[in-house]
Structure formats: C-alpha cells, structure tokens
C-alpha cells in the first residue's frame, strides 16, 4: 500500500524525514521504503547563510559560510542575490540534482566548495529563475528541502504481514508511529447527526455479515473530485471515478474501512438484503465482467438480484454515475475468511477484499461511515436522510490479563512496568492494573491480539528488537552426534564417489508420468493439483531424473558423465531414502602422456560394478546375482546388492533399447537406504598387525567350464584365504575365453596369489605345497584344472 508522507503528518505530529519514517516502520515490523520523494533531488537541506565574502581569486564569485545547525560549510557561490542571514537550499556533497547531476567535492578557482547553494531552476522547481532560491526566513534549518516546501510530498510503500490489516490505512500507520514515538494520534473529527431517522430497509440473512451500517444521502451532485482529493488518490495509485466513489476510496486509504456507495434508485425494491448467493446466480461487477456466484458467497441484494459481491466488488448496474442523485452508502464488517474464499474462487480481488480478508475494526466501520457522509455532503452536496446500524453479533472488546513477570520470562530481559503501560496505552489498549496483573482491553481494530503472548510481542516490537539484550549462547548443552549408520553410509558413498570424480546431483521430486513409464516404472503418488505437467507424480526411482541429467550433459558435449544423488523416492511402501549413481562414457580423458598407448576404457558393467564394490561400507553388503527381473536393466548385465541376505539395491547396464540414441552403455546403481537405517553399529575396522616378512607371489592359470559361475571359484579361494593359512591375498588379473586353445565350453582365469607368514620368510617348497592344496581343492570341488 502507498502512504503519503504529508497525509500521515495530519494524523500524528513527528519530525522524521520520509526515510526515517520508513526505517522506523521497518524496525517495528512494517516493511516500508520511500518510493518517491516528490522531488527531483536527494540530499538537499535547508541552511542559514552566516557570512558572505569575496572570492579571493574571482570577482564574480563569493565565498559563503553556511550552517545546517550542526555543521558549518564553506561554499563558493556565483549568485548575486546571496546575502548573510538568508535561509537557502544547500546541495551537499553526494547530492543528486535533476538531470542526474551529482554534487562532488570541488575546487573553484583554487578554493574548496563543500556543496552548492541551489536556484529554483537547478532544483527543477521552475523553468527559469534568477539567483539562489531564498526561502522564508522562518524556515527551520537542517531539514530536507522537500519537507519544508509546500506541495512536496514523499510516497512510502508499505508491506504488512498478514495479521496486520489494521495498518492498511494512513490512520493505522500513524498509530504505529505514534506508539513508537509516544505521540497521540489525532483521529479526523466527524459530525454525527444524532437525530437521523432509522432507515429500516436492511435485513441480514447470513451470519457471515457481522455489522452493517447503511445510510441514504439524497440530492448529491456527482462530478469530478476537488484537486486535494484527486492529488491524494493519485499518490496512492487509486483511479479517479467521480467525487462520490473517490470519497469512499479516500476514506478507505485514510481510515482503512472499505465503503461501498450505489445508486439506490436503480434497485428493484427499497429492500436491501445481505444473504448468501444461490448456486445459479450471476452478477456483472463494476469491472464489466460477469461472475458466477454460489452458496457460501455473501452478496448484497435487492429483492430480485445481487447488487454487490459483499466486500469484493459492487455490481455494474447499481453503480453511481453522472445522473445519480440518491446514494446508499454502506460500511460493514463481513467474515474475513468468507471474503477471502469468495475472492479466490472468483479470481477477483480488490482493495476492498484485500482489507476485508485481513479483518477490520468494529468501531472504525462507524467512524468511516460518518467521515464519508460528512465529506459527501460537503463536496457533493445533498442531505443525509436516514441511517441504519445492524449488529448481527454482540461485539465486545477482547480482554486479556497480562502478567508483568511473564514479560521478562518470555523476552529474557526486564521491561519496567511503567514502560509496559506506556507502550500498550499508545497502541490504544486500555489498562487496568490489578496487582501483578494488568487487565488489557484491546481496541476493536487490533483483532490480531488474542492472548497474553501477543501483548508481549507488542511490547518487544515497539521497544525494538535490536537494542534489546542478547543472552550468552548456552554452551552447556551436550553435543548430540547424529551418528546413525545410515548417515555414515551416505557420507561414505558421497566422499568415495567424489574422490573418483563423480559429481553430486540434486533433482526435483516430481516427474511426468511418461518419464517413469519410459523405464517401465510405476507411480504411487499422484499430485491432485499440479500446476504443470512437470509436477504430475512423485518419483518412484532416482533413475528418470539422473537419466535426464545424463542426456542433458551428453547433448552439451560431455564425454564422461558420472553423477550420484541421494534423496527420497516415493515407492509403494512409502517414502524411502535412496542412493543412486549413473556412469557413462570414458573412464579417462585423453592425456598427452598417453598418446602412444591410447587408453579409451569406457564405463561398462564390470568397471561400474567394481566401483560399487569399492564404495560399499562393510562386508555385510554383498554382490549377488540379480534374480528378480528388472524393468530397466539389461537382463544379462545386472547384479543385486544384499544386506544381511536381503536385496536392497541393484546395478547394471541400462537396457540397450532405452539407450539406443546414446553412443555408449549407461551404468546405473540404485540402493534403498531404509533397511540400513537405525542400525547404529557402524563396523569399526580394527588394526591388524601385518607380517614383516616379504610376500611370495604365484601366478596360477586355471580352466573351468564356462557355465560355472566365477563366484564359485572365488569362494573356494576365499575360504582358503580366510582359514588362517599362508595365502593372504588373491586377485583375478586375466580372464581368457579362446575356446580353440582351451577346449570347447571352457574359460580360463589367471589369479595372482600372495603368500605370507607372520613369523618367517617362506620357503619355495612351503608355497608350492600350499598352491598344490588349493589346486586340488578346485579340481575336486569344481573340476577346475590347472591350465597346461
């Protein structure tokens, strides 16, 4: 909302500059900024000319000493009319004049000038002017020029929090400043006609209307608004209609109460009914558009049809126009929630609905009606004929007991009782001290103050948050480590993959259904009210997101894409923490040192699988055959990850049919982290003493049936290594499939075996004997033979 600085001053007496008003308001919870100063300059202040001397280096210039009441400045001036004793405008260093002319520190003919004394022309006030602008001698010095000139006004933009509808007016803002500065706010005086006849034609038929005041004014002359009124409305950004409507708008920005005026003669009956609309009713509002109403929407109606959408907008047919002579003026209190719902449903909001939604003051409704009626008869003439004030509820001001001791208990510092009293009283709260307790009666416009702590907030707010004490940080709280096995695993995955050159991705949790279906994935959570297709469903896998990232990066020319992500997926069993990684392209970039031996290894099933094997945090995680068919993995290039015997993850190459337009294979890994949550025993690796004697290595090549799973062979070797003998380590360094050399249906493997004894250097015989034992075991258990 826009606030006129000058109009504000009519409600409360203060000497703050517009900028200070804005920062004062911000400091008490109403964000405010100066949007227009009403002038084309900044930093021009009123100063007194103390003395005028001739410039030592130029005949036509003079050297003036001026004062703003705090500091003295030495100014070089070329005007003939300058004389000591004058009050003049001084553009200080840093000031900006019209035409973006910035005043800088300068030397004029060898003498420093600390600013510029301005003419009216230089200030853009007049087209032509002679000499400096001499102000009235009574003008106070040290003030911004715009604040002392007639007709200059600054406009402030204020933004309120949802609970402070009472601040959507000049009066409301003035009350806040008054409370902060401890100044009494003057409310416009209204002339109340006590002996008006009762109108007796309004009927409230819905409990969504709390209070309804209506008055008929006859004999009005509709025309243009006077200049002062037009000016104020222009500053607040309100469109001018005619004097009657303009006055209702003016009273709204002045006091905060939306009013509605309509031509009563255009109604089909003299009866005015406030009721809920029926489901098939329609109304053409003042914006010229037709709105379909339904029950739950409050309307003002005659006996036949709606005249206005209560609190939102009037109807077009009953609007005040040039021929109108008799008007009906309405000031009412409607249910805030109902107005909000109506406004949202119709997608129609107005300055009026904006205020109704935030709640209005019971007493203000009455004040505003009189204020508007006074102004109408004053400006448009006519006579107030009758009035009716219907109360659908018995209104009582809220009473809250405030315990003085509770204030410091919540705030952590003591506020003296008299300061508490002062702050609350200036906010319009009536106080009755009762021993340790102050009984507070809340004014009607502050319907946001409901309980004791709301009062405590008022005290803290007006006192200001910044100046108040800050306690020492509590250091005596025990530091609770978030030490679940799960977060340790996630950290382990992240840091290990990071070390391998992976980047961490973060995708949004939504997908289009088609993006899931592409991978044969189902969705379990559909968004009921998505605003776009992108937000149709919640992801049930991290694959579609990462795959989308992959294709984006390939299209950007990336040769290697290695990404990982951890986050929630939304599966049939609910939301599940999940970790996934995608790998694609070259394992290594080209390197100038490798020009001779071109290395162009691509991420494939075994390389990716090797990475996964290496990031798994403990031996409780095992890699096994993927026995459950998967919708998106290559059927022959996939494996599963077991945790304590249960499948918790899978990895493999993404189905070729899904990646046909991508050059290389795509490796994907996804693991459900939920089963490992809350197992708080991260396996600690204990140090094992290692042998100080050298290892003896043996390379052994064997042949096996191709149908024999490699894991079986590995298991035999592993068991030997685990048995505590001299075989300590082993690795597969070659797999060989040339059946012409090995025999049909055969495959060859080469192992490197490493033997060690903790107490002595091994002899060749000891090692050879052990290799022999292993080979015999492989042969007898699996038919795997030493390659000849």
């Amino acid at each position: 909302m826009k606030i006129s600085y000058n109009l504000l001053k009519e409600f409360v007496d203060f000497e703050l500059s517009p900028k200070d008003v804005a920062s004062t308001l911000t400091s008490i919870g109403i964000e405010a900024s100066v949007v227009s100063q009403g002038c084309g300059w900044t930093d021009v202040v009123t100063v007194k000319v103390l003395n005028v001397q001739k410039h030592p280096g130029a005949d036509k210039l003079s050297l003036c000493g001026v004062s703003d009441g705090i500091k003295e400045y030495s100014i070089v001036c070329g005007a003939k009319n300058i004389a000591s004793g004058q009050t003049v405008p001084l553009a200080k260093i840093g000031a900006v004049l019209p035409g973006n002319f910035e005043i800088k520190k300068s030397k004029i003919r060898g003498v420093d000038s600390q600013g510029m004394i301005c003419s009216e022309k230089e200030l853009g006030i007049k087209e032509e002017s002679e000499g400096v602008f001499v102000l009235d001698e009574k003008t106070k010095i040290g003030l911004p020029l715009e604040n002392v000139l007639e007709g200059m006004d600054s406009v402030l933009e204020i933004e309120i929090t949802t609970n402070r509808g009472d601040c959507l007016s000049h009066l409301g803002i003035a009350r806040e400043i008054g409370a902060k500065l401890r100044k009494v706010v003057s409310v416009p005086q209204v002339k109340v006609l006590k002996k008006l006849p009762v109108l007796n034609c309004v009927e409230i038929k819905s409990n969504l209307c709390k209070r309804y005041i209506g008055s008929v004014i006859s004999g009005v002359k509709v025309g243009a608004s006077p200049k002062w009124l037009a000016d104020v409305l222009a500053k607040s950004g309100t469109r001018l209609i005619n004097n009657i409507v303009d006055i209702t708008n003016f009273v709204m920005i002045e006091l905060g109460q939306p009013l509605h005026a309509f031509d009563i003669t255009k109604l089909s009956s003299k009866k005015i009914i406030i009721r809920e609309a029926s489901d098939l009713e329609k109304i053409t509002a003042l914006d010229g558009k037709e709105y379909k109403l339904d029950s739950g929407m409050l309307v003002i109606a005659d006996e036949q049809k709606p005249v206005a959408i209560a609190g939102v907008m009037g109807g077009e047919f009953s609007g005040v126009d040039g021929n109108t002579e008799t008007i009906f003026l309405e000031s009412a209190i409607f249910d805030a929630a109902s107005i909000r719902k109506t406004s949202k449903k119709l997608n129609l909001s107005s300055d009026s609905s904006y205020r109704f939604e935030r709640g209005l003051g019971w007493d203000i409704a009455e004040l505003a009606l009189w204020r508007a009626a006074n102004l109408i008869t004053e400006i448009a003439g006519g006579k107030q004929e009758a009035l009716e004030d219907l109360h659908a509820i018995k209104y009582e001001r809220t009473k809250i007991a405030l315990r003085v001791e509770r204030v410091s208990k919540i705030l952590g510092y003591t506020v003296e009782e008299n300061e508490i009293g002062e702050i609350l009283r200036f906010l319009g709260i009536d106080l009755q001290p009762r021993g340790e307790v102050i009984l507070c009666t809340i004014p009607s416009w502050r319907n946001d103050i409901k309980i004791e702590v709301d009062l405590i907030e008022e005290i803290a707010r007006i006192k200001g948050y910044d100046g108040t004490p800050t306690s020492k940080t509590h250091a005596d709280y025990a530091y609770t480590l978030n030490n679940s096995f799960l977060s340790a695993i996630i950290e382990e995955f992240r840091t290990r993959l990071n070390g391998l050159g992976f980047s961490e991705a973060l995708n949004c949790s939504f997908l289009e259904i088609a993006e899931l279906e592409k991978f044969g994935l189902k969705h379990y959570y559909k968004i009921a009210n998505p605003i776009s297709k992108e937000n149709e469903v919640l992801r049930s896998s991290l694959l579609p997101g990462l795959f989308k990232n992959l294709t984006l990066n390939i299209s950007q020319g990336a040769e290697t894409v290695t990404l990982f992500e951890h986050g929630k997926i939304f599966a049939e069993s609910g939301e599940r923490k999940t970790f996934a990684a995608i790998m694609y392209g070259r394992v290594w970039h080209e390197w100038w040192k490798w020009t001779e031996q071109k290395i162009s290894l691509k991420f494939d099933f075994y390389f990716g699988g090797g990475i996964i094997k290496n990031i798994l945090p403990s031996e409780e995680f095992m890699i096994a055959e993927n026995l459950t068919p998967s919708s998106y993995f290559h059927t022959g290039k996939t494996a599963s990850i077991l945790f304590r015997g249960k499948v918790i993850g899978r990895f493999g190459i993404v189905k070729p049919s899904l990646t046909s337009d991508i050059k290389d294979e795509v490796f994907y890994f996804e693991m459900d982290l939920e089963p490992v949550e809350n197992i708080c025993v991260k396996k600690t690796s204990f140090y094992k003493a290692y042998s100080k004697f050298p290892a003896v290595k043996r390379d052994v090549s064997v042949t096996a049936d191709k149908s024999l799973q490699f894991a079986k062979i590995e298991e035999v070797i592993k068991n030997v290594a685990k048995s505590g003998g001299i075989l300590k380590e082993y690795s597969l360094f070659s797999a060989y499939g040339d059946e012409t050399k090995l025999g049909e249906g055969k495959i060859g493997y080469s192992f490197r075996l490493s033997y060690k004894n903790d107490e002595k250097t091994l002899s060749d015989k000891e090692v050879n004997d052990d290799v022999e034992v292993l080979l015999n075991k492989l042969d007898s258990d699996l038919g795997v033979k030493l390659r000849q």
Partner: protein
Amino acid sequence: MKDIGRIINEALEKIKNADVAALENIKTEYLGKNGVLTQILKSLSSRSIEDKKRIGSEANNAKSVIEVEIESKKENLKKALLDEKMREEKLDCSKSLYFPFSKGSFHPIIQTIQDINVVFKSLGFAVAEGPEIETEWYNFEALNIPESHPARDTQDTFYLEGMKALLRTHTSPGQIHVMEKHKPPIRVIVPGKVYRNEASDATHFSTFHQVEGLVVDENVTFADLKAVVSDFIRKFFGSDIGMRFRPSHFQFTEPSAEVDMQCVFCKGKGCRLCKSSGWIEVLGCGMVHPNVLKSVRYDCEKYTGYAFGLGVERITMFKRGIDDIRLLYENDLRFLKQF
C-alpha cells in the same frame, strides 16, 4: 720399505682427485693381493715379535683408513653423478595442469546444509529428519495455522490424489514430530526438502530446502533466540557482518522476527542483489506459539521455546552469486563441477 704414515698420505692424496675407475686402481694398488699394504703385512713373517705387533697394527689400520676413504669417495661421486643427471632433467611444470582424471564435486545445496549442520552442532544442536509426505495436522493445524488462514490455500500446497496427505510446504512439521517423540529439553535442527505449488522462475521452484530449528526448555527466552541466531550468522557468514532483527509475523511463533544481514556485496549501500535496501533476509524466527506447545501437550506455562527457519537455496544463491534457482536442479556438469 716406505713409512706407513707416508703411504697413507700418498693414498689419501690420490683418492682425493680420483674418479670411479681410478678408485678401483687405488684399491688394487694398496689393498689388493699384491697391494702395498698387503706386501708389508706379508713381509712381517721375518720380523721380530715387537715389529710384527707394531707394524702389523699400523698396516691394518692404514688399510681400513684407505678403505673407508675410498668408499666415502665412491659414495660422493655417485651423489655428484645423480645430481648432475638431475640438473639435466628439467620438466615443463605447466603441462601438469592436464590430467586424464577430473575431480568430483558436491552439490552446493547439500554443501550449504552440511555447513549449517556443522555450525548448529557446534552450538549444541542435534540433527533430525522428518517425512516429506505430511498430513494437514502436522503441516498446518499443529502449527497454529487454522483452516481459514491464507497459507492453507490449495494453490500453494501440493495435495496427493486419493489420500488425505500433502507434501510439506516447510520443515516446521519437524518441530511437531520431534516434540511428540521427546520431552524437553529439546535442541534440534531439521534440514530437508520442501515443496510449493508455484510456477517456477529465477527465484521460485517447486522443490527447495529449508533448515528448521527448535529449542524448548524451561526459561528459554527471546534473548536466547537472538544469541543463537546472531552466533549462527557470525559463524556462517563472518564475524564482521551487520545484522538486524525486525518484527514480523508467523502463525507458529509469537513474538516473531525476521533477521536481515547486511548485504555483503555492497556493504549495505544498496545494490541489485539486495534490491537497493542494503539488507538481505536470512531467516525467520520467534518464540514458539503457546498453541503449538499445546498441540503436543506440553505445559506452555512451564516450557517456552524458540524456532527458526532458513531457506537453503536463498543462502546458497546469495553466497555463491547464483542468479537462477533452476540452475541448481538442472545438474549440468558445467555448473556442478564449479563446486
């Protein structure tokens, strides 16, 4: 027969200037089978016992002196040779910029969350997590947001089809979960993903992150809140940063405050990033509303508390100079690799 002392001097003199080949010759000349000293020792058989003893020990001593000297000279020559070779091996270090293996990166949002966690852990906070699918009770009612409140507008919240559930619009439901499971004292932060049903642009996205904080105990005050929040800002953004607390409104806190930090780019003068205000909003906070404590059956006379909430994207974008939130969710490696 030469004097042994002279023999030593002579040999040492030769060693001084010898190269590797000459050293071998010197060794043979003095210590070899027919070497000078060997000859002396051999010749001793015809001498008296006293002579044998005296000359024998002198000769043996001379042998070892020369031997040690030769070995040490050899060692020196080897070193000198390697040093000389090293001097010729100068590589162009600028080429080491190229490597076939690129470094990994952590997502800036996750980094910010972890940095926030570290600061709050140092202030004695535990870290908790909560579900992303919530009920209206946890997301709204328990937090003193009644049905008629504007925040309940369906257009801001994602509701799930066919069930009475929604995606949490803030991390504040975490407060309720923690309080339901634990008794005071509570001192916890809850980082996580949240969702808002709004059109995306440079500063809005349907998915984003918040970190919620909650402290409940006896005698917790607004001054304590100010202390922790100020401490956090100083530890996270720097000790010299200006900040201000200004009154605000949240349904679940009373009194409520918003905390602004001086714009680090323009130092408070006003620039594009702070929309010429000189301030940047960092977090919202306040004293836990009694209705929130009541909703988890806490005695709101005995216990008081404070809560705060931070927008992770906002802080990250501000700290890293990222001008479009959508960049954070595209996962373009040209973006990710910068962090």
